[in-house]
């Protein structure tokens, strides 16, 4: 009888731990890119890497924390209200599009140099950085 209670207790503990991790902890704890070591790079080098060889660039940057520096070309909001910044060169075919975590107004303006740390999610028309925080 003691053995059955012991086994049931262990099963209950394991089950509740799994439930807590899957549905409570994971819902409230998201990846924090800002605590991770980042690849420091200029916006031009990042876009060039993707323009030259997207597959190779993905191997280096996809899902990695990057700290990217460049000139602000546009400042906008996306449809969900997040602040977005495009950095790079005005005449370039592709630039770096960053979505910031904060929707607060930023002190920098178009033409200023800015450094943002975020996670690289790949390349569409521009290289995309998510969860950006201004450094």
């Amino acid at each position, binding site marked *: 009888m003691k053995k059955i209670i012991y086994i049931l207790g262990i099963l209950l503990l394991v089950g509740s731990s799994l439930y807590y991790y899957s549905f409570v902890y994971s819902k409230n704890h998201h990846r924090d890119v800002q605590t991770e070591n980042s690849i420091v790079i200029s916006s031009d080098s990042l876009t060039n890497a993707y323009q030259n060889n997207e597959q190779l660039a993905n191997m280096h940057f996809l899902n990695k924390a990057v700290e990217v520096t460049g000139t602000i070309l546009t400042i906008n909001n996306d449809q969900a209200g997040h602040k977005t910044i495009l950095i790079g060169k005005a005449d370039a075919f592709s630039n770096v599009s960053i979505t910031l975590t904060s929707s607060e107004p930023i002190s920098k303006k178009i033409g200023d140099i800015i450094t943002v740390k975020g996670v690289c999610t790949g390349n569409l028309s521009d290289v995309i950085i*998510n969860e950006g925080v201004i450094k």
Partner: protein
Amino acid sequence: MKSIIKSFCLIVFTAISMQSNAQKVFATKTGQLFFNASGGIEKIAAVNNQVDSKFGEATGQIIFGVLIKGFKFENQLMEDHFNENYMESSQFPKADFKGYIKNIKDIDFSKDGKYPANFDGTLTIHGVAQKVTTVGQVEVIQGKPIITGEFSVKIKDFGIKGLYIGEKIANEAKIRVNCKYQN
């Protein structure tokens, strides 16, 4: 004098011809795509706020592109499983739709209103391309179009494998698009 007038007329005619042939292209880099594959009591839903899309007003040619790692879930574990176990996003980092709005001529971009739109094209997810035909809507507000639409895809049609498909995860995922374009 005659030759000057002739040259001037030629230049004006050429300029007018070029203008009439030029196609207005609407574009956005911050469209929204909602994904829902809830199969049971558990909500399996995500949003991507960086849909890259453009379409031509004259031809109706349209493209949507999304990065798989750009989908945000409420639950981090779910997001990790989505990327690693199902979409294999390191190997297949993007999905796209390339096709046409077949009835583009029925949409008057100079007049505010809601117009039904018939989409026909190829949807590529997980490296697998499938023909897709669906109906959506183009709403024109002050010359700027908003495309909305919803359609379902059978997850296994795109070579996506993994546990729980057909159980906790629905066999068919609902995709909802909401893109506000600039010109």
